[in-house]
């Protein structure tokens, strides 16, 4: 639709203003994290442009974090999130493939069951589940941290929707050629499904990277603690070094941001797939 020049200028200004003000706190976190210790407050009252431009800053806070428990926490977070992606996909792919391409009695029922169970909000049942994990001797272990995130009905849903879009003839032709069901899935269907794999992988990763309640409940000993827990504990210590908290916050935020920068398209498409059923 045609728009006057003035309207374009106005809309662009509005969009830029909103975007900058939403983004500002994050930029401030980055700029302040480069001021050693708590010295960032010197630029706060009165507010100076140095609060947003880290000229003269250094990496003291990052160095301090790197020598403490946070680094181990970061390693644990990566390990747990990585295993969640691999195992989560290994569980979701065959399930989604069976639901999308195979005809068997009870298929509709199984699919509805998965969707209904996916709608149970995990955090609400995390507290009862943590008592069960104690009985099952799974607390304070990597398995305990990973297992609940593997039950991701939305990942199955996203993969299924994508598999359903692959022409049935292609799958049948591959099977007629003697490729067998699993070879067809592995060498024909999966290479075509990269967007859905990335989307579902991102969902699994973010569900784990953003987790806080569960890793807190599972009561891990220091050597298996995840980074957000380490950082939150650091913030409640008697003498808080807020510069370090900001540096840690920035690290934990920039990692998913970089991934989203690369995979935003696939991720948002998967998100809107799950939204369609709403």
């Amino acid at each position, binding site marked *: 639709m045609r728009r006057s020049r003035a309207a374009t200028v106005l809309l662009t200004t509005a969009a830029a203003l909103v975007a900058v003000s939403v983004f500002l706190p994050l930029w401030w976190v980055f700029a302040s994290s480069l001021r050693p210790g708590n010295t960032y407050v010197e630029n706060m009252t009165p*507010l100076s442009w140095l609060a947003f431009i880290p000229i003269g800053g250094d990496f003291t806070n990052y160095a301090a974090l790197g020598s403490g428990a946070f680094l181990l926490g970061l390693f644990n977070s990566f390990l747990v999130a990585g295993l969640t992606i691999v195992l989560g996909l290994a569980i979701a792919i065959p399930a989604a493939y069976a639901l999308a391409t195979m005809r068997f009695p009870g298929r509709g029922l199984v699919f509805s069951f998965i969707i209904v169970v996916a709608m149970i909000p995990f955090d609400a049942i995390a507290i009862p589940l943590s008592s069960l994990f104690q009985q099952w001797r799974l607390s304070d272990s990597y398995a305990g941290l990973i297992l609940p995130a593997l039950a991701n009905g939305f990942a199955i849903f996203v993969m299924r929707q994508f598999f359903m879009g692959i022409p049935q003839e292609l799958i049948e032709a591959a099977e007629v050629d003697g490729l067998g069901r699993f070879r067809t899935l592995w060498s024909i269907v999966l290479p075509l499904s990269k967007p859905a794999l990335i989307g579902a992988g991102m969902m699994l990763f973010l569900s784990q990277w953003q987790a806080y309640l569960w890793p807190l409940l599972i009561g891990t000993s220091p050597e298996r603690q995840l980074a957000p827990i380490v950082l939150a504990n650091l913030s409640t210590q008697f003498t808080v070094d807020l510069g370090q908290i900001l540096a840690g916050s920035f690290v934990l935020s920039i990692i998913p941001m970089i991934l989203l920068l690369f995979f935003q398209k696939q991720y948002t498409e998967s998100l809107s797939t799950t939204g369609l059923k709403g």
Partner: protein
Amino acid sequence: MSDSLTRRGTAADAVAPRRPAPPRDRKHRTARIRSTRRRTTLVAFAMLAPALVVLVAMRVVPLFSAIGLSFQHVSLATGETTFDGLANYLYLFTDGNFYSMLVVTLVFNLILNPVIVVLSTALALLLVQHVPFVGVWRSMIFVPAAVPGAVVALIWSTALQPDGLVNGILQSVGLPAQPFLTSANQAAFSIGIMVTWGALGYWMIFIIAGLKDIPASLYEAASIDGAGWWRRLFAITLPLLKRPMAFVLIACTVGSFLLFAPVQILTKGGPNGSTNLIMYDIYNRSYLLGDIGVGQAEVVVLLVILSLIVALQFRMMKEDD
């Protein structure tokens, strides 16, 4: 299922010779089809098994365990459970703190969720326009959605300190500094701000997807009829956005009822119970006060409230259609 039979039949016909098969042969063929069908079923369930096992063990079992334990008394000393009837529920429903927690949670949600839906719709309407660098603006607004909830809490607790970013900005425009998280009047509002900041960009994506589904021809027809921007917004855009907006409202409400990290990290439910939201209250009762049975009864209350809200909102959506 009858559909699957006919389909399989046609597939087989395509490779089989075109003339009618003799009766004996047909019988043979149905037997073969039946055995392939049984094999397919078996393979399908084998492929579904891992997913079904984790879903049941990690979601369904704890759900029923919560319901079960809510009728039990769990001894703190021995961990032994004894059937206790409705005692946990009676305890909750005669506890004044439970009601003040419910009021805090409901008021918080009744304000926060509509605000998030309206703001994310407004942002989507703005950022769906073709303006220069729209991709950059959109990404900048989406970025906070990538920040983990606990980190959102830590960032904002620093920004809301007496000498933090927000007070710095307030004072630079001549406004007095505010106590934010340490004031009973402002703590819930402060948590609402950080949640909104972390959620807007995420929900905006869903509304933008909904906006893109609206056929451009509708707008063209409307502008030929001389309808202005506001008229088009209320006659075309908003009515057709009802589904994605309802989805966002439902999903956002469920998410906000489960809010935990900011309360646990920043306020511990205070000052004066003003941020004592239901998830923190459950955590507090089960872990800090060690009252597992009452905690589980409260989990059940939360699940009932959530189901009621989701059912109600689904129903409103259906009626509107």
